[in-house]
């Protein structure tokens, strides 16, 4: 038995990724989760509009804090601010005072409702009865019943794409390496770009179909509204898929077998699930850890998905997540293509592959290849 134990330890010592998964990941997860795992919302952003906006803003009590005070604006402006994710609550002063709460930010909305209730009246935002918002009952927008499924399903759609895009793609590509067929592909008259696309497009199609299924079930079974533009949503999904498929290919290019690819893929997927805002509100994650959230594409897709589906948010309001997603997607695609090319063009010193005619045969510098 001792021999068996020694053998296992020796194998484990050489399998550094498994070792990392076993030792480093628990420590990292504990630290990250310790700071990230919080549903508590201690600060609620608010906009204040209407003729008495300044007075109302001055009367705000924590957890509310005003991020924009606009005396010249009306209820429509306040609504648009919530729609564009600029704030969680909006206080509209005037003849018909209103308190609006963004229900798509579930935990913050619940905290807002609780805070409003605890302040002694149903419509005060911490203001006294004589304040400009007296008598205004909070009105919850986008998710009036504060249903969890309304915010989870748009996020889960992204999660499905991460699984297919990253894990399944990584496995599909590394399988070629395991069976020795990637070596075969390297000598075939196909450009690395075509091999890359040929490998990725089927997963892209499957992921798109899966996304359609998830959304159909979400809308038809769970009653999640799809208020926004399908085209905007599709564009977001497209960019997100570029990022996740690229990540999958990059993972496969540094993995020797499917076990390694799965490990590595899980190492990228798990933190995304925990830190993307899918489960824990981004605002509740400690600042020291929150920056990690903004490295992950799922963070941006979740924002786009919830924004489009629940709030009918136009692309103009989502330009930042779109831009970040496009940047990450582009970077991952370039990295994946370069990694793929490096593997598939060993005999050409990573030069562009082409099929020269025999008469073109000339000695190449460096490697001295002649073709």
């Amino acid at each position: 038995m001792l021999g068996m134990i020694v053998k296992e330890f020796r194998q484990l010592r050489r399998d550094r990724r498994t070792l990392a998964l076993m030792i480093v990941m628990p420590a990292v997860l504990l630290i990250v989760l310790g700071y990230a795992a919080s549903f508590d919302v201690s600060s609620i952003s608010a906009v204040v509009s209407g003729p008495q906006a300044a007075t109302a803003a001055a009367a705000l009590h924590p957890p509310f804090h005003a991020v924009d005070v606009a005396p010249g604006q009306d209820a429509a402006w306040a609504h648009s601010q919530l729609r564009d994710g600029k704030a969680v609550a909006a206080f509209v002063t005037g003849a018909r005072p209103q308190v609006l709460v963004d229900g798509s930010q579930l935990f913050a909305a619940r905290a807002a409702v609780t805070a409003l209730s605890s302040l002694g009246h149903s419509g005060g935002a911490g203001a006294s009865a004589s304040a400009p918002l007296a008598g205004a009952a909070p009105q919850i927008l986008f998710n009036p019943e504060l249903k969890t499924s309304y915010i989870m399903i748009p996020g889960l759609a992204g999660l499905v794409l991460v699984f297919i895009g990253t894990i399944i793609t990584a496995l599909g590509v590394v399988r070629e390496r395991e069976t020795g067929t990637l070596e075969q592909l390297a000598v075939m008259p196909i450009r690395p770009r075509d091999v890359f696309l040929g490998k990725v497009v089927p997963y892209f199609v499957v992921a798109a179909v899966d996304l359609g299924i998830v959304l159909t079930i979400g809308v038809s079974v769970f009653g999640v509204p799809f208020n926004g533009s399908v085209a905007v949503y599709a564009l977001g999904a497209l960019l997100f898929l570029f990022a996740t498929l690229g990540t999958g290919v990059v993972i496969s290019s540094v993995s020797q077998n499917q076990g390694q690819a799965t490990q590595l893929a899980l190492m990228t997927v798990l933190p995304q699930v925990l830190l993307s805002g899918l489960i824990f509100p981004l605002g509740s994650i400690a600042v020291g850890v929150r920056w990690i959230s903004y490295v992950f594409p799922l963070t941006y897709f979740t924002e786009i998905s919830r924004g489009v589906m629940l709030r009918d948010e136009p692309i103009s309001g989502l330009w930042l997540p779109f831009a970040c997603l496009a940047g990450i997607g582009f970077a991952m695609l370039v990295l994946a293509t370069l990694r793929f090319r490096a593997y598939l063009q060993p005999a050409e010193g990573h030069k562009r592959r082409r099929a020269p005619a025999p008469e073109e045969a000339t000695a190449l510098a460096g490697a001295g290849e002649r073709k």
Partner: protein
Amino acid sequence: MTAAQRADGARRRAASGTDREWGTRDLSVRFGKRTALDHVTLRAAPGQIGAVVGGDGAGKSTLLGCLAGAVAASQGEVQRPPAARVGYLPSGSGVYPDLTVAENLAFRASVYGVSSAVAGQRVTGLLERTGLASARQRLAGQLSGGMRKKLGVVAAMVHEPELLVLDEPTTGVDPVSRADVWWLIIIAASEGAAVIVSTSYLDEAERTASVLVLSHGRQLAAGTPAEIMAGVPGALRAIRGRPQEDEQPRAWLRAGQWRVWDPPGACAPGPARGGAGRDGGSVIQPDLDDAVTVAELGSELRPADRVEGAGPGLAGGAR
């Protein structure tokens, strides 16, 4: 595959003006600090079969991978046709285990731009002759090792390559399937392809037009089998008993009989050297197996062992 079709293939090649030699010249390949190939020159002539032989880790797969374009050269020259006219079987079978035989061949044909009609016509005969026709709809992963190798060779030949590179196509293959694989190889050569095969079986290499012997990445010998056999330096003896202690680094057991290689300059065997129960043995003509063993011994022996010196060397090593 009819003779007419083979002749047609050869004619097409001749008409395209591509009946030229391929191969490597002074090729070196390094992986980090390790030298996998060290100044190796290999010729691959159209219509001929060349063999690359050597033990495990000799560099055969690296050389063939380099020739086919799967491995980057560090130094030297590689001459090969464009990728579309190279056929390559890596050391595995190179086929997709989760595709059927027919699907594997269809994929290969599509990549090389061969129409399904032409490919179908071409592979039908090959599959029938090699016993794969009835397995067309079976998954490649469910085939026996020998059948998978045969499929790999057929797949590498679908597009009638000018250069066919086969890495150990008969390793782990039963004798009947080995014969089938060699039938395919001969077909390819008869169509005009330059064929390079690596093999551990020296009886196979002996039937080829040229042989390159590799050991630890270095080229030990090259030429026709006859040239390599004739080029064995010194003398080879077959003896009945065990070799003497000083002979052991230069001795090996083959088919139940010890063989001793006496390098040039070594003391001639005779009664004076024979111990109790042994004789000097009889001088024999080396076959290719012997010639390769001598080449490897010559490269491995310390200078002191090459003549009279005694040393640990390959004492008692059965080959």
